């Protein structure tokens, strides 16, 4: 289990992490979600004792990370796949890590096998693609067969096959009862990977709960309807208390009404429907939750031409 209590990190005037408290439970994949620059990496670094919190604290398996003896046997973490000496071979990189925590060297070959790098294990990591480095980083997290695994954006740079592989790996690790914390700025990825979400924006906790709860709570439910009888359907729905927006001549957006209710009403009135679909995507929910918090939102500038 990972627990953060009132974690705060201040860099001069900037609050990178602001009074953040959460728990990461075992046996499930917990997604740590937030836009770029929202404080995910800083939080993970504080959990690992790399950066000292300005105030608050974090524990892993009930202890501060600095107080763990041979921590790789309890916690595996992948923060930056590009970290590591480019002149060292993959096998040697894992060897020094294994030595540092008295992990048998046989384990190095095992984890290389698990991540599929056996054939390139004697190549210098400087020659590796980002995807191969991610795999090596994942191999390193598993060296000590730890109960807690932390991954910062592990699918970055992986090909679609690799992404599916990571997803399945995280799932199987969680099914073995381990604690998995995985960060991402991609809601769609988390929807496929995580069971539980911790959503942050500008260093603050925005939401925590199951993926389904998150969507339930933070998105407004829209139903999109395509119909040649848009005007009549809109009137019918409004008569039943729905909030309807006419998007186009044949397209309606209906709020707080389920697809089945819209369909039933349309059928009752003999109206044709081409399409009826729920619009509560995770991405929408995420955008909505973090909208105010995004640090680097694109702004539209209007350029005015000034006459000389």
């Amino acid at each position, binding site marked *: 289990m990972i627990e953060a*209590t*009132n974690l705060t990190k201040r860099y001069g005037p900037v609050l990178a992490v602001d009074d953040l408290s959460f728990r990461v439970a075992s046996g499930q994949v917990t997604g740590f979600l937030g836009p770029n620059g929202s404080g995910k990496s800083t939080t993970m*670094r504080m959990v*690992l*004792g*790399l*950066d*000292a919190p300005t*105030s*608050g*604290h974090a*524990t892993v398996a009930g202890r*501060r*990370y*600095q*107080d*763990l*003896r*041979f*921590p*790789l046997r309890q*916690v595996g*973490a992948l*923060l*930056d796949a*590009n*970290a*590591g*000496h*480019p*002149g*060292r*071979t993959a096998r*040697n*990189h894992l*060897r*020094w*890590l294994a*030595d*540092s*925590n*008295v992990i048998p060297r046989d384990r190095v070959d095992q984890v290389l096998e698990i991540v599929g790098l056996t054939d390139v294990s004697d190549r210098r990591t400087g020659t590796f693609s980002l995807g191969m480095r991610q795999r090596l980083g994942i191999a*390193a997290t598993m060296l000590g067969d730890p109960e807690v695994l932390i991954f910062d954006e592990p699918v970055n740079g992986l090909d679609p096959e690799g992404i599916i592989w990571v997803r399945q790996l995280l799932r199987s690790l969680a099914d073995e009862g381990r604690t998995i914390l995985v960060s991402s700025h991609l809601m769609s990825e988390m929807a496929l990977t995580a069971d539980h979400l911790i959503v942050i924006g500008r260093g603050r906790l925005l939401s925590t709960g199951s993926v389904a709860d998150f969507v339930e709570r933070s998105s407004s439910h829209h139903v999109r309807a395509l119909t040649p009888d848009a005007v009549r359907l809109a009137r019918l729905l409004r008569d039943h208390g729905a909030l309807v927006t006419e998007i186009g001549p044949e397209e309606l957006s209906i709020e707080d009404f389920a697809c089945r209710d819209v369909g039933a009403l349309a059928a009752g009135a003999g109206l044709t429907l081409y399409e009826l679909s729920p619009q509560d995507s995770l991405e929408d929910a995420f955008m909505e939750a973090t909208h105010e918090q995004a640090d680097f939102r694109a702004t539209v500038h209007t350029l005015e031409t000034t006459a000389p």
Partner: protein
Amino acid sequence: MTEAIHPRTTAVASDPHRTAVFRATVRSEWTKLGTVRSTYWTLAFTVVAILGLGILFTALEVGRWDQRTPQEIAEFNPLIYSLAGMNLAQISIGVLGVLMMTSEYSTGTITSTLAATPQRSLLLTAKVTAFAVVVVVVSIVSTMAAFLIGQVILGPDHGGLSITDPGVLRGVLGGATFLLFIGVIGLGVGAAVRRTTGAVAILFAVLLVIPGLVLLLPSPWDERVGQILPSAAGEAMAAPQQIPQLLSPTIGVLVLAAWALVAFGAGGLALARRDV
């Protein structure tokens, strides 16, 4: 804010397994050192410099022997000539010490290192230990070899010494110890500064630039300050007996040890206090 929920436990300091962690960390640092090419390059440079310059300088001396005045011959110090390569070797060993820390930062390895060994002062001590063992072996073997080859070249006719002559063994070992301390200074500066260029610049300034600047000081300060600089202290250590204008070999060791301790302390403080 209740900051004291998890006070830094003294349990870690008195942990009986701390030695196990230390031993594992030293072993890990050896693996790190042995698996990058820069280690082999800097050590090869060190050996070649010590042997090569030792051979060159003693051979030149033999060639010029006939032109020497009796006074020059009386003052001739064969040990210094056979260990002439230490002036170059201090650079490569110092740089190896620097790289042991700064390459951690430049490659991002430090994140994995501290995740594996979060006890930071223990980590730095283990790094110095692993480094020291390698440097001591390489420098003792190469200074001893340079001395022995040098004396063969000089021979009894040109002032050649025996290792059993008074102060000679201590001088040879002093030369090796000098290299070790310079390496530790490099490692400490590397830990404090974190960037290779900055740390190497500081090291070169202390070893090469400041000795020249000190000569410009008014007497007697040029001598007083000059003799406590690391290179001068090292020269004192590598001499069979005290050289005029230099410290005694014993004081030389202590002065150089103090330099190493200051650099190590600064590095330890930076590592312990600063975020990665």
